[in-house]
């Protein structure tokens, strides 16, 4: 069967937008239920933590530079460095380690 690349792109774009747009447009009020509100409050922290580790370990050329970058980023963030500093700091550590070691 001959498939069209543009139709593929249209299908995936439609499905992906559908998923994103429904909750944001349908849930317009503040949810009152404490359990649901608490759940939604915790969601980002769990999701981002799950996505970060261990995926970060395979993001770079080797696991050790990534591990040092990971720990370095946590220390910077805990000490109150800005988003930008943490992100760029982690990049620099990885770059330096992979260049000189």
């Amino acid at each position, binding site marked *: 069967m001959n*498939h069209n690349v543009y*139709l*593929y*792109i249209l*299908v*995936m*774009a439609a*499905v*992906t*937008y559908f*998923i*994103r*747009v429904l*909750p*944001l*447009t349908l*849930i317009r009020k*503040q949810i009152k239920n*404490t*359990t649901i509100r*608490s*759940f*939604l*409050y*915790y*969601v*980002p*922290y*769990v*999701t*981002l*933590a*799950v*996505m*970060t580790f*261990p*995926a*970060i370990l395979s*993001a*770079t*050329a080797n696991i050790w*530079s990534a591990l040092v*970058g*990971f720990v370095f*980023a*946590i220390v*910077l*963030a*805990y000490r109150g460095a*800005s*988003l*930008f500093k*943490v*992100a*760029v700091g*982690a990049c*620099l550590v*990885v*770059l330096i380690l*992979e260049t000189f070691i």
Partner: protein
Amino acid sequence: MNQKRTCYINGLRDGFPIFLGYLAVSFALGIAAKNSGLTAFQATLMSITNYTSAGEFAALGLITSGAAYLEMATTQLIINLRYCLMSCALSQKLDPEVPFYQRLLVAYFVTDEIFGVSIGFNGKLNPFYSFGVISMAAPGWAFGTFLGVVSGSVLPFRIVSALSVALYGMFIAIIVPPTRKNKVLAGLIVISMMASLLFTYLPFVREISSGFRIIILTIVIAGTAAVLFPIKDEKGQEEKNES
């Protein structure tokens, strides 16, 4: 008026690390797209209309194998279902007064990264902050894809490797600072990372795709936390829930 402007500029600033990370990741995506036989125009169009790294990588495989359109739709639905959870969380972060068209725009760019910084916004999310982040970050995704297709050797491998960490560094910068005041969050993050580690390497559960892994762990861990440590008062989202 002034507040919109300030928020927009702050968004641009916080969007920059995302721009760097996107450049690196979408560069790799562009190379993969080229190998799958897509033209630079097709690959860039896919990135502009989708903004989903895992979804687009999966789509390339499906396009190459000539999969059915329904299979494409189902795959995207499963891989990107986490955006639904993120949109639900964002819906509570937005003021109910935010107009419909602004919601449509914010929804278009619910990615892991843009969602992350939006949640980190102090208090109710001003959509103009999101627009700032989007203006800075989104072009990086499209441009990187384009660059990856037209030349696989513009960026040295070492640079790409280092830039890939930017996105994770950003996630860390979002989730770690609140743990100073909130020990429940600290515990939750450690548990989440350990669970994710186990699900990645343990036999049997490692067969679960990364998209489903994120959804399952989020629902179970955030759900348990919601029952055990409910947030008490209306405004206690940022600082007050220290108990």
